């Protein structure tokens, strides 16, 4: 993806944490804690919240790495089933739910890559756009995403995880560290190297 193209998109979407949002965070954490407790008791409304919150995030996370719509959907479904099975054992204890869910997702993805190495698969669903998209929006999205996916394939696995988890999924260093099983210092180091590499890759693509 060209740096220029991304810069234009950046103007359209900037992420701001307002003071109002910050004051509402503790109430949000308490609400999240209550919803998890209810989900552990199989309350349908709480399970619906969990599913609606994570299915799209997991899909996006998987699609960026697999580049295959159907496999990304399968991963989102399978990971959420594993989350459901293990949810009873989840305790807050400083591990954010998002980090816990994405750790399961990353492990699933690692297993999937191992299986793929042994038994390569050919996708029939590469790049199917969402039915809700207009052709122009779908085309822009596909271009930006496919360029990013291509660039991500040239990073190491951990660098790729840091880029996706931090800059696409919006996690903080603590959560990224928990997903990767690394220290926060290691995450900072990985983040630096990942951005340097990505910059080089994207700049070279722009020149070409």
């Amino acid at each position, binding site marked *: 993806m060209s*740096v220029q193209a*991304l*810069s234009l*998109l*950046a*103007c359209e*979407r900037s*992420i*701001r*944490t307002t003071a109002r949002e910050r004051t509402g965070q503790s109430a949000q954490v308490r609400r999240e804690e209550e919803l998890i407790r209810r989900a552990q008791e*199989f309350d*349908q409304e709480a*399970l*619906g919240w969990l599913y609606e919150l994570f*299915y*799209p995030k997991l*899909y*996006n996370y998987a*699609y*960026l790495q697999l580049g295959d*719509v159907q496999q*990304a*959907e399968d991963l989102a479904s399978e990971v*959420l*089933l*594993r989350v*459901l*099975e293990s949810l009873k*054992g989840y305790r807050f*204890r*400083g*591990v954010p739910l998002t980090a816990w869910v994405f*750790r*399961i997702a990353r*492990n699933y993805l*690692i*297993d999937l*890559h191992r299986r793929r190495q042994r038994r390569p698969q050919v996708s029939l669903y590469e790049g199917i756009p*969402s039915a809700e998209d207009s052709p122009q929006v779908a085309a822009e*999205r596909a271009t*930006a*995403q496919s360029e990013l996916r291509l660039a991500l394939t040239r990073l*190491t*696995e*951990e660098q790729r995880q840091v*880029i996706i988890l931090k*800059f*696409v999924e919006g996690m903080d260093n603590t959560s990224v560290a*928990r997903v990767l*099983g690394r*220290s926060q210092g290691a995450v*900072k*180091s990985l*983040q*630096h190297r990942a*951005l*340097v590499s*990505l*910059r080089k890759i*994207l700049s070279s693509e722009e020149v070409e």
Partner: protein
Amino acid sequence: MGRNFQTILDECLKELETGQSLDAILARYPEEADQLRPLLLTAQNLKAVPISRPRSHVQQAGWQRFLGEAIALRRARERRPSFGLLRPVAVAASLVLMLFSLSGGATVYAASLSLPDSPLYPLKLATEEARLWFVFDEDDQAGILLDQSETRMTEIRKLVQKGKPVEGNVLSAMRGRMTRATDIINKRDAPPELVTRANELSASQEEILIAIGENVAAGDRDEYGKVLVVVHEVRIELQGLSEPARRLDPEALAEGISSFTGLVEQRQDDAWIISGTKILVDQATIVEGDTGEVIGRVAQVTIISGPGGPQAIGISLPGSEDLAKTLTISGIIDRVAGSKIQLGGRTFKLDASTVIDAGSFVMEPGVHARVESECAEEALVDGVCRGSELMAKRIVLLAPEGPPETVTVEGVFQGQDDGSWIIAGIPIDFAPESPALVTPPPGTLVKVTGSQQDQAILVATAESIRPPEELGLVKLEGVVDQLDDKQWQIGPAPFHTTVATRIGGELIPGARAVVWGLPNEDGSLDAIHVDVLDTRSLLAP
């Protein structure tokens, strides 16, 4: 500068998150502005990548499946009777008795040979359970439970050998049996031999579980963390150490364990400095070996990520004699038969305590392997191994590389016997066509590479990795990660390569490697000799 810059970059990224303008942020770091700008722009642009959305009808179908599974789980929980512990036993009893009556015992026999991925495996566990009903002596019960727990280790080894994932059923069965055995041992004065056996078994189990971390199925990481906690705490209890004040967190163990070998620089009550890395210790840390004077000694450390930094769960201080009796042979596996493998003209025997680091490979003929072995004690005569088989302590499976007949032998040279070199107590013969070799001083760590000719090696290269007088040389072993062009790390320990570093293979992030080097004052290591074991990254692409 590297580390400071990483911190500055991180601060800038946080400021960018709060909506501050790029120019305002860069104005606060004028010296680093040129370096920061492109990276912050890249980060800003990443935020702009459109989110990919799933197809709504697929998401909806997934929700129906999710909800169905939730309802099934809730019903299963509601049906569970309050006498939960008795239920599996009752089920086991009826299952075993029914199958005995229907099949005349043939199915039960077939089940006894099954592995955890077989549909007959639950029957195998049930049969084991039934065996305990007729044992009334508690010491005997504990002994049988330890046998069964050891059987789980063999099953795990066989799964890993075949390249299959280790699933939760075998891990939970190991945990259950180990817990029950130690409950019996702890509540009364058990015979010392039973305590010793449980202690040795739990130590082996911990070593094997750490080695197979990558082979555990993703959905079974929680069970993996739980069984590791059990075997670790069993070790603490049985060694007569106090109850751990801090219980280990299964989640932290499930997240990943790494180990490295370094030089002890400082020892404080709550932390050790090992090769420049601060490693936290507490009552849950098991320290093994001679712990008298530790400064300047080599330590093998097993660590997990803790909130305050790397936390040691084990520190081993091996004596020089431990290194001296280990012979490492690398080459292509010629044959795998039952619990034996042949490689480099030698036969290696595997037992329940043999650790297999399979990476993503299967243990089969044609696969490249590195076997750490030693002579069986009964085969040692006057310090020289006279047995035909060696005991495999650790097997690392590698991608095939180089000509198939290439074999490498590594160990401490001890002298000559009838023309053979004695390395790690084991006679190594060289083919008559081999070039004349300079005999190294005893105590030298040597590495000989050549091709296999019957029982002998036609030597291509022979090198001294570590002269006996060279003190303070440190060995790191594990998966490497690249920091920059010349700087790498294994676990938390960084190492540098220089023009003088001898590198066997190509250093690739994600490959396994063995690094010998000298520690610097800043805690990093100047690599003298690097053996890269893999030709490609083991991490997912």
